[in-house]
């Protein structure tokens, strides 16, 4: 098969989530939100976060225009952060960035084990430097939303 060696990058779950994201819509009620864009390629995402009463993430929704990788990443992200505190989301974002850049991430605390498992499908991007930003863009937007920044940009370097 011609693209066999791309199956690492485009795993079934990515293709599926890219096409049919579960969380790909604006939340009817949300507490914070932020946009992210990658000026070089035109990917755009807006992330919406609703808190629960304990100050943890109740739900994340997003609206995205972008490639399969960025949409799938946003969708898996939304799943992975449910129930986490803002501080935990930031930590997880860091582990995810390492995973995307390096293909693996060490010393991930046990409390993130489940979350990171769901994200591993994206580890394949590390071989495609210009696609790493597609995967990390929704996370930048999410962190910007938590920071109250409103906007995030995926840097070129």
């Amino acid at each position: 098969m011609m693209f066999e060696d791309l199956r690492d990058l485009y795993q079934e779950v990515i293709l599926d989530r890219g096409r049919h994201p579960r969380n790909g819509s604006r939340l009817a009620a949300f507490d914070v939100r932020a946009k992210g864009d990658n000026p070089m390629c035109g990917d755009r995402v807006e992330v919406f976060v609703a808190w629960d009463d304990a100050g943890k993430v109740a739900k994340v929704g997003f609206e995205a225009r972008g490639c399969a990788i960025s949409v799938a990443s946003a969708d898996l992200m939304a799943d992975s952060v449910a129930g986490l505190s803002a501080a935990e989301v930031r930590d997880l974002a860091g582990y995810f960035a390492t995973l995307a850049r390096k293909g693996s991430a060490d010393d991930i605390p046990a409390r993130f084990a489940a979350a990171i498992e769901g994200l591993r499908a994206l580890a394949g991007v590390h071989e495609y430097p210009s696609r790493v930003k597609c995967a990390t863009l929704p996370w930048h937007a999410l962190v910007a939303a938590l920071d109250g920044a409103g906007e995030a940009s995926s840097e070129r370097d």
Partner: protein
Amino acid sequence: MNSITRPDSLDVAGIRSAFPILAQSVRGKPLVFLDSAASAQKPRVVIDALCRAMETQYANVHRGLHWMSERTTEAYEETRDAVAGLLNAADRHEIIFTRNSTEAINLVAHSYGRGLLKAGDAVVISEMEHHSNIVPWQMLRDDHGVELRVIPVSDVGELDLDAFDACLADGRVRLVAVTHMSNVLGTYTPAGEIVTRAHAAGALVLLDGSQAIVHRRVDVQTIGCDFYVFTGHKLYGPTGIGVLWGRRGLLERMPPFLGGGDMISSVTMERSTWAEVPHKFEAGTPAILEAIGLKAAIGFVEDVGYEAIGRHEQALTQHALARLDEIEGLHIIGAAPDRGGVISFVMDGAHAHDVATLLDRQGIAVRAGHHCAEPLMQRFGIDSTARASFGVYTSLEEVDVLADTLARVREFFK
């Protein structure tokens, strides 16, 4: 599958052998470089000209009384003659070296725009411009109170000339700055017609020839425009050098842009006076080596000949349009009759980036994104396209590889 559909007048194999990089493989596959509209590869003569200069004949220009400086100055100034010849400029003093097209346009926006335009004057651009021919005029608008008007683009991807007339109607337009060939749609714009209408309305015309000059002979006197810009790296030359051509009388009336060495006539702390054109616009040590490389690139293009280049481009483009059109779910953006070797498309179910990544895995380099033309993307209601673009070294076989692979990409994402 495929088939070579047209006779090809160019010795493509011979030309390919002049480009060392084309022998490279990428990810284990032979490189199929279809991103020439972003930047072209460099022929051996350009590489050699740069190396030879650094190895045997180099010094700073214009200011030296010694042999190395005199010879290097000669070589640098010979490029001015070569560019004047390439554009059929009336006068070598009309050729100004810049870093790239972008700087050339900014130079005009600063020097002509801030220097000679007044608040209330209007500048016209079009919806199919590269950001480099949009943002400088927006900055002029915002800093200087010049109005910015935009020629819309039709569904087939041409300038709407009736709307252009409407832009010109109130006589306030002083400058029309439009592309000579779209870097997204491949459309050539009707330069002569634009000039006629603009001049009749009392406006000057700047043509962004970044793409056009790669494929067609440009004669600024026949076109009748007032400024023409292009960028060396797309014309098989080095990075770091671009060209602004302008009518001498106009350049002489324009104030300088950057200040510094080489652009002055005299300096005292109270007051400085300017050198004559073109030097007035070339502050500091210029891109000497790059000029030497650009001269070699122009020589290369002239040796191949624009006639042959044009025929080859048309053969490639027609073949590519036919082959891509066969692919179910693939949509080509723009369908202007007068178009060249730049083809943008979208694919159902697959984002342009994903398409590009799959092609890359097969050694095929295409560009994906907004191509520095966001307003044009908005016009077509899309956020990005994949774009294949051809150079003098592109073969019909490579077009077939692209088409065959795209058909598989479509399968992959279906």
